[in-house]
């Protein structure tokens, strides 16, 4: 169950701005995205910028309950992924994995796993596998090459490269250069990139640099007050795929 290449993905925080609106959004985006990232609402979205922070604060439900508002995300996007901070689930990793499995997700991505809980990497992989899920890993441009290589040897569903220091905030970083370098280190593993993606040009150049998939989050959520506007934006972005 891999993701198609090239792929556009969408990040949504579960039950933001309301359960109803969240489900409605899921409904409307089917066919527009190749994979879906569902954020588990948390009080401390530590790597997120202002827009997604606001989405966590504004979610109707918190934690895994928010995720469970539908029992099969694969209806909406070809490959659903849960996304949460492992700091919230250090003692209940299995609960998250079971929930993911229950709602039809293919993996749970923990962005803080290798930075803040590298000692849990082995356990994480085990829990994923034992729940019929694939592991997936979040890295930054500064993650050591050797660590990236050893992660890619775990046959993850994908490796996610955060392009900037936080979601939704651009910095003058040569992100294409970073993607080229990481691509070279990764081998064949599926490379998803994201953070502050907001134009088809950007999507195009990231794919060209070596990304297999690109995720949009803040730029879509920002537009959700007018869902049609958000959907046209998503279509416009999709035009960046080759």
């Amino acid at each position, binding site marked *: 169950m891999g993701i198609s290449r090239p792929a556009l993905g969408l990040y949504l925080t579960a039950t933001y701005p309301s359960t109803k609106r969240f489900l409605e959004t899921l409904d409307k985006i089917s066919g527009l995205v190749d994979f879906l990232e569902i954020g588990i609402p948390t009080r401390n979205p530590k790597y997120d910028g202002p827009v997604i922070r606001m989405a966590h604060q504004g979610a109707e439900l918190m934690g895994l309950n928010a995720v469970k508002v539908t029992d099969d995300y694969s209806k909406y996007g070809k490959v659903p992924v849960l996304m949460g901070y492992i700091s919230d689930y250090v003692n209940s990793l299995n609960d998250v994995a079971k929930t993911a499995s229950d709602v039809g997700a293919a993996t749970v991505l923990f962005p803080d796993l290798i930075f803040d809980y590298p000692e849990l990497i082995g356990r994480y992989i085990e829990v994923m596998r034992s729940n019929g899920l694939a592991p997936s890993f979040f890295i930054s441009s500064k993650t050591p090459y050797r660590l990236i290589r050893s992660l890619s040897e775990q046959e993850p569903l994908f490796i996610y490269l955060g392009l900037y*220091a936080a979601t939704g905030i651009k910095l*003058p*970083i040569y992100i294409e*250069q970073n993607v080229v*370098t990481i691509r070279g280190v990764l081998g064949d593993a599926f490379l998803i990139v994201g953070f502050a993606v907001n134009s088809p040009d950007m999507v195009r150049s990231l794919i060209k640099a070596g990304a297999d998939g690109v995720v949009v989050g803040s730029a879509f959520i920002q537009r959700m007050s007018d869902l049609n506007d958000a959907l046209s934006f998503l279509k416009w972005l999709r035009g960046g795929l080759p």
Partner: protein
Amino acid sequence: PYEGESRIALLNRIMPSELLHQEFTSLMYVPIPDEVREIYMRLGRPTPLRRARGLEKLIGNGVKIYYKFEGALPGGSHKLNTAVPQVYYASKDGAKEVATETGAGQWGLAVSIAAALIGIKAVVFMTKSSYLSKRQRVMFMRTYGAMVYPSPSEVTKYGVEAVKANPNHPGSLGLAISEAIDYVLQGEGRRYIPGSVLEFVLMHQTVIGQEAINQIPEEPDLVVGCVGGGSNFAGLTYPFIGAKLRGEGFEKTRFLAVESKAAPKLTQGRYEYDFPDSGGLLPMIRMLTLGHNYVPPPSHAAGLRYHGAAPSLSLLVKEGVVETRAYTQEEALEAGVLFARSEGIIPAPESSHAIRAVIDEARRMPKGSVILFNLSGHGLLDPDAYEKVNAS
């Protein structure tokens, strides 16, 4: 503490863009621009790697000691290694001014020199207590053409508020950072540049270790440096540590980071997210820290009074790749005097901490062992430190 826009987004408005890229680059090696390389050479790079034969004789057990002498640079410390590229990148952004904070003044002096050479203006906010006591450094910064303000100053809202709250405010590094950043945000063509802790600062400093690895004629058993924020230690050791971790030699080499007991983050700090500045204007980073509000006791080694250690160094300590040690000011300066008398160079009080560790380690190492340490600065601008030692 910071309630405005995202601290990360703020970086775009205050720091030279190339530096932000370097902070997040995935390249293993970042090329040194030709212009920076030329200035490095004019200022005395490569710096000498010397054998401390006098100190060896004093210890007398056949341990060999090499040191990399960063005090050979103008201004007398390693700080120029990063001041030059930072000012260079600021000027590439079209900046006409760079602003920064300084405590004892070593960093401010380096920025003043770099700015003079590159032809833009340096604005330095210096903690008021140092501004009043370190008159020489202030004077030399001005000789290089820098504008030096005591912090709290009258030119930023943070300074004005601090004075309003306490007319005798002695200043703090955190306040000086806030003032420098505020100064940058007030006008066009200004950039803020930091002296330590950030990863690109450490990366610039690795020119020290890159040179040393080529200069030293044998593999060291022990590499030693002192730690304020971590840049001089990382600068010397990272190229060695990198090679070791990649399995490219130095298998038996140990690395020892030496700090002041006045700010013992490596030996007593917590490993957690904290602010690099006491004002909380900059994004949090994960590091060994005593807390950004930690107030260290006075120390002549002002460069070692910082509350945290650079994230990568903190991780290496946590992982056991780098060993740590803390000394008191007296223990360090005693070693500094021994070094002066046996090698002819008065070391900076900061560097004396490394020397103290070198002496203590050398005494218990077997004959033929090899030590390398970073003499990060000379002490000619720190007469007050040695005045006390002489008196005792």
